[in-house]
């Protein structure tokens, strides 16, 4: 039954929702990403794990994925931009695809 299964694209949609929501945007919950906190930090500060932990806590279905299925990359775009890429079991969600997050 199609209604009882979740496709990867649905999960990707949830992550997109999370990426589009700043932290504390919903009344009474800390749901949302804190992307701005990643700015002006050293490259080797290991913030990616914390960022993903928050994502997994906010979107509990991700915890059901096998270990290592969730990855986070940053790639430099030009001189002054970073592109954030979240890889969910092979489906890539890029922050770019949401439009500019200023």
């Amino acid at each position, binding site marked *: 039954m199609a209604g*009882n299964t979740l496709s990867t694209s649905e999960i990707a949609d949830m992550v997109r929702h999370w990426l589009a929501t700043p932290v504390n945007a919903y*009344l*009474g919950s800390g749901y949302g990403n804190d992307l701005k906190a990643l700015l002006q930090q050293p490259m080797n500060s290991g913030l990616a794990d914390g960022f993903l932990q928050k994502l997994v806590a906010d979107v509990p279905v991700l915890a059901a994925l096998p270990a290592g299925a969730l990855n986070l990359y940053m790639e430099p775009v030009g001189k002054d931009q970073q592109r954030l890429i979240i890889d969910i079991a092979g489906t890539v969600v890029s922050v770019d695809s949401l439009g500019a997050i200023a």
Partner: protein
Amino acid sequence: MKTKADYLARAEAVIADYPKAALAYQVRDPRLLAMLESMATMLSLHSMEQDTAAMEPWTKARDVTVLADAAVKGVLPFGTPMRVSLSVQNITATAFPVLTGRRLLDQQGRIYVVTTGATVPANGTATIQAVQQAPTLITHTVSANQAFYRIEVPAPEIGYIAEVRVADSLGNAFTYTPEFTNIEIEQRVFHLESDENRTLAVVFGADAIGGYQPNVGEVLNVTAQVTEGDITLSEGSTFVFEYATTLAESGAKITLTAVTQPGAAPMDIATLREITSYPSLYDGSAVYNGNFDFLLRRNLSPFRFLAVWNEQREEEVRGPNVDHMNRLFIAALKDGVDTATLRAAIERVVYAADNSYRIRWVEVAESEIPVTVNLQVPDVYDSGAVQQQAREIILAQYGRDSAWAKRGSGRVLYRRVTSLLEDAIQACQADEADIQVVVQDDAVLLPETYRYVSETSLVVNVSVPS
């Protein structure tokens, strides 16, 4: 009160009717859940608000209710300007006049206006009176011809409004008539009203009902006197003229000799709570005993202590005397003002309301009430912290600065102390905890005693239940 979890449980109970949503709910899809949770939070906040509203008929639980009640009872958010007596010393050989309306500045640049001027003789001194206020003018063009036309008076950036005057463009003044009492049709009067946000508005009358209704296009000038309220100036503070034109004036030495009326901010919530606990009164005048108390508090607040009583109350405590007929007994204390000035101000207010009374001044007698509180709390609690907490609670309720003490003639109630302590201290809510209150109070309360519980008269013992 319903909590967030209660609302979510309700949502969960019916979500099976919507299979797609149920699936999303099961995997805790944030696209659905974030919205549901925020709605549940909002509803729980609303539920809390409703609980407060349900309590309102019995106690004024919210500050905004107190403010609204005060607005309805016509207590306006006015500040009281400071009035000072200044001595002007002329060091030149030319006499110069200081006219009424001349503006002075103090060391902080606050504006004072001379109310009683004087001519300062050559090489001599003169005394002048000044009040700390500055006018702001609002020019309003009437935009609609309507009954009870309102003009809002904007709140000043610094300080408080002390007085409002209204005049038309030719300078013909309108009379301030509270609540439009005893007015005729077309009489040029205005009324002031405020609301729970402490916004002040000038209200005019209505055609064919009473008062003057302004016409469209008419220009009205509203002058608000703005004062900074509560100011502390040390004796001998220097003042200067805002503009000094002659050599004699610029050399003049102006110093503070006395504060004749201390400034005050508008009544705070605690005072308003006190004021609005009186039943509604007829246009601020006084007839019965309690009315005079209200009248004085409303006009001259804040008091350190005020008790007003009549013949009947006096004879209850000190026995009858024919001299007590038509006499009003007043004991009053106010911070920052000398007794003579305070008594003169009280006399002015009382005689304006009813000049058939004779006033007898009674000295305020301060008295400390010995209170011993024995608490038994289980030894898992820090007895020192419990003791300190109990002291703070009792002193806040019955201390020298409490509203209870300032009102006078009250008893320290065992029930009140017990319930206060039980509500606020967790240790006193334990199963084995006990509270014992011992108050050694006078059998007869004299109305002029300013009674309070002080740091030294309060003893709190904390022990472990045996």
